[in-house]
């Protein structure tokens, strides 16, 4: 773990490498750069919304089946009622999987943006 000394507390997280400055400048200084940034933001937002909606739909389906599925909630798997099993255990892997898929896709969006900026 390397220590970084920063004396002024606020707004001190300025980009550190020249590479970063390069991409930042490219982003701000030209019309093309501005368009790239806009499309990056839009694709990241779309991705986040898709994952969030997907997860919420799965959650809603779970809940609906448990409430309205006749006899589903009382069904026992290994002696544990199904509603306890799905809400207490089953939902967590879904959350983890959504997060993992999002991380991969978000990093891919950023890589694509960087390729665009560097090709320019």
């Amino acid at each position, binding site marked *: 773990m390397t220590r970084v000394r920063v004396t002024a507390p606020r707004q001190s997280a300025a980009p550190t490498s020249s*590479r970063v400055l390069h991409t930042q400048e490219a982003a*701000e200084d030209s019309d093309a750069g501005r368009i790239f940034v806009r499309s990056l933001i839009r694709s990241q937002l779309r991705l986040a919304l898709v994952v969030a909606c997907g997860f919420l739909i799965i959650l809603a389906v779970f809940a609906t089946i*448990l409430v309205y599925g006749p006899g589903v909630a009382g069904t026992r798997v290994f002696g*544990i009622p199904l509603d306890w099993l799905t809400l207490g255990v089953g939902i967590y892997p879904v959350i983890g999987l959504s997060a993992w898929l999002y*991380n991969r896709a978000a990093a891919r969006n950023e890589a694509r*943006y*960087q390729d665009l900026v560097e090709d320019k």
Partner: protein
Amino acid sequence: MNPAVGLFAFLAVSLATAVIGFYGLRVSRTTSDFYVASRTVPPWWNASAIGGEYLSAASFLGVAGLILLSGTDALWFPVGYTAGYLMLLLFVAAPLRRSGAYTIPDFTEARLDSAVVRRVTSLVVVAVGWLYIVPQLHGAALTIRITTGLPSWVGSTAVVAVVCLTVVAGGMRSITFVQAFQYWLKLTALAVPVVFILLVLSANGTPPQATLPINPTGQAAAGAYQHISLLVALLFGTLGLPHVLVRFYTNPDGQSARRTTLIVLGLLSVFYLFPTVSGALGRMFAPGLALTGQADALVLLLPGKLIGGMAGDLLSALVVAGAFAAFLSTTSGLVVSLSGVISQDLFGGSVRGFRLAAVMAAVVPLGFAFMTDTLALAGSVGLVFAFTASTICPVLLLGIWWRGLTDVGAIAGMVTGALLCGGAMVMGALLGAANAPAWLAQPAAWSVPAAFTVTVAASLLTKNRVPSSVNRVMSRLHVPERPVATER
């Protein structure tokens, strides 16, 4: 339970906290060290620390207690607490780290280029923090009262004293170590007794006193409105919690902020299995606790009740230690983030100011805790999430993703959310838990959309106030700071 057990466990945790806190003192000397641990904490450490900080009294005691009281309805709490982190990952984690701000007020000031917005955000953040510390202190009071028989105020005062000492001594660097340690302590403290109890029960073939679907209190089941409102509060409240957000600044960059969040999700998922099993065990083997108003103490009392003897005492000591780890870590996390905010606004951001602010941040909620009492920890923390979701969340989400946000919009949204949600909380408290209608008891489902609507509408009406720096700030939030290719 033997009173010495509880006392010993509390002293051991406090001592461990202090030792790790002081160990951190040697490496934290600059202002930046104090605020954000110089942003060089590796993802695993950071994730454990986030887990340690996030898992509060509500998670450690409250979830199991609420499951004992209301069964599957209560399972939505841990689901919401965890899924809130998913929302944080999707919408906030990386951009917020890239913003380079230390606190939420720093972020809103930089994004909207307005000192007034900063003031308002600071007020809201301090209110949220204080509201959130109070249930932690209630939890400490309950634990001390149940396990040692000492008066309630001893528990809350002791927690505030230990937190003040560690924060004043080491700032954030040592807090990171303390909290990472406390996550693993909390997990052990819940997991070992649960596994032990399961083994003993299955070895003895003890028949359960009640079966799972049976409701010991005969409470009415929550309707769809309550579930939806609770989920809105937890999903959107998590991403505005000040003590959670400040943790993201300790990641070196946006990508590692995401990786850290993914690890946190794993840690939370594993943790919540155990309060769930404890709650289910309580329903089956100790349903009587629900009737005597001791539901929140279920986790503490279960080992003594089901195992007893020496082994029961040892397991109880472990659980009490875990419970105090929960109160200490969440309270100190909140105190660190609050003192960051208070000291920058009041004392100009010096280390001395940070220490003064830390004491202020911890002592005020102690007063609130003395004056109030709580029946269900998970429920009262749920209300704080609703408040956060109605105030900080709209500004944060719209600030990160929408260029059209203006200072007027942000202030109007925060004030609307605070008035609506705060008003509902006060009204609900005046009417009492039994008489308050569902829409007052769980305000998030209408107060959060209202806050969003007002923020957007006021911003659209003041289009000319969109700051000129918006393009620069937005590209800073979203453009990756390092070539992604070398990351993998």
